[in-house]
């Protein structure tokens, strides 16, 4: 191919323009790489100081400079909140997305999808205030249950969007085959379509779980932050890994910061695992 003559000013602009794009990409990447590396390095150094088992199950003693202890109660809190909120959201999200996919084109279906998309982007601190005034105040106590309810409201729309996407992508022929065999609509949806879409649906559950694990703002006024004691029931005040990072990041004492970095590594690992699993199940990049 012959070299096309390009005016020198255009050539210069081309080089400068491409250089600017690459520079911006570099600036975009630097903080992300730095965050990843520091979370891993600082987190690992904290966990090495305490020992993995003690870090995951022990209680924090940030004033001890040689061994800041562990974040056991916070991890337990996160897991309890995750389990509770999955129990609350899975049935609702599943049936809502069935409605959206089955009756697509109807005003209710379109409104439901729009509402989910709106709620996905909703400021999560407002959800925390909402649960504070409707659950914490009437019950006169902060609790893991209140935290789980707040997290449920945050993760529900994510799951609905992802699951209805999965259900809509099922080929029409499958449904027609089921009808031709005389299956009722109910049976077709719950036996055939859900089975066919199960990977996408599970991916939606995992994405919702990743959201549940990472959220902090909805927990601020619902959990209270009992980082040092294991809860006895879901009506007790609790802690969560994300909340622990928030509360400890304010503290100037090095022990608190060390615990926060260790907790950040635990949190990042949990989220990365969930996202990776969702991506494998869905067989594509997932929009978060």
């Amino acid at each position, binding site marked *: 191919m012959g070299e096309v003559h390009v005016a020198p000013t255009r050539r210069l602009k081309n080089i400068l*323009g491409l250089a600017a794009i690459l520079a911006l990409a570099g600036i*975009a990447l630097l903080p992300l790489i730095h965050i990843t590396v520091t979370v891993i390095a600082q987190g690992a150094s904290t966990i090495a100081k305490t020992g993995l088992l003690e870090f995951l199950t022990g209680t924090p003693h940030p004033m001890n400079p040689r061994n800041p202890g562990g974040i056991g109660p916070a991890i337990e809190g996160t897991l309890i909140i995750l389990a509770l909120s999955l129990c609350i959201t899975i049935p609702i999200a599943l*049936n809502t997305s069935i409605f959206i996919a*089955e009756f697509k084109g*109807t005003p209710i279906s379109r409104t439901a999808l729009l509402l989910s998309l709106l709620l996905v*982007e909703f*400021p999560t601190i407002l*959800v925390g205030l909402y649960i504070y005034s409707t659950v914490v105040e009437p019950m006169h106590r902060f609790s893991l249950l209140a935290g789980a309810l707040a997290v449920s409201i945050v993760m529900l729309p994510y799951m609905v969007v992802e699951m209805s996407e999965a259900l809509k992508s099922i080929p029409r022929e499958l449904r027609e085959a089921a009808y031709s065999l005389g299956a009722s609509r*109910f049976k077709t949806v719950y036996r055939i379509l859900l089975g066919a879409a199960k990977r996408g649906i599970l991916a939606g559950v995992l994405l919702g779980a990743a959201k549940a694990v990472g959220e902090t703002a909805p927990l601020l*006024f619902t959990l209270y932050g009992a980082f040092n004691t294991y809860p006895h029931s879901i009506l007790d005040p609790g802690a969560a890994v994300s909340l622990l990072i928030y509360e400890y990041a304010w503290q100037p004492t090095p022990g608190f910061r060390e615990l926060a970095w260790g907790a950040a590594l635990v949190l990042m690992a949990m989220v990365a695992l969930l996202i990776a699993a969702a991506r494998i199940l869905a067989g594509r990049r997932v929009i978060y």
Partner: protein
Amino acid sequence: MEWRRMSRSDKRFLLSLLPFPLILLAILLSMLAVFVLKSLPILEKEGLKVFITNVWRASETNPAKEEYGLLAAIWGSVYTGAIAVLVGALLSTGFAITVEELVRGKARELLSALMDMMAATPTIIYGLWGVVYLAPFLRRYIYLPLHRYLGWLPFFQEYPTTGYTIGTAGILLGIMITPYAAMIIREAYASIPLSLREAAYSIGTTRFEAIRLQMGLIKPAVISALVLGYGRAIGETVAVALVVGNCRSLTLSITAPGITVASLIASMFKAAPYYHYMESALYAGGLALFLIGLAVNLAGLALVRRWEEKWAKYM
């Protein structure tokens, strides 16, 4: 599907599922109701003044003396969001073009995986990193020189006593929305038909000129990504609360500490029950955030929809 043309069993099926989508509606409406009801006391006392003044006078003993104004917080949310969009726009377009256009193979996969992971990384981790690394770094290498040499500009007027400022919050938010915006821009960029791209090169454009042409084509997608990013930025709480400085200042200066609605709620709400009107004032802030967030996100979604419809014609 029309109601009249449905079979009886279909109707029964629809009705039995109907409660579930209604839950979403009920959540949104009852949330709005709670915020309106809870902000009534302060609205009755001060009227709309609560949104347009900048005072914070608390009194444990005499409720009549209490006076609250959210202007600084509302301004802080709007301003940090704007800085975030500016930063995010530059970084995400630069990154999206680089990945789609300038790198291949393993490097491309690696960059893309890193971005995906950072899009999913909890915001509190960005916050922790912002407190420990970003704030001191910006103060030392950016704010101090800017204040020293360009201090006559209103943006850098204030001496950066600490790194916890409006600018730091805006930049951290910009870094946080970059992976998300880049994801949307990349998807749009990849969907440009090959024929358009070939047409550009066939008339002898340079690489950069071809990129500019293509970015022009997907401009609506870029704008909608940034609007949605703005919505995320003004709603973010914990990362901002950690780095914004939490000071009620009404300023253009990015080197001054500030506050946002979300971080005001986060830092004040636990103490609010000791006062008569403070809780209500914070709910009023929540109501403002509720309405701004709803408007921004509706606009963003409408832009996405319009762009998808327009684009469908080319496909």
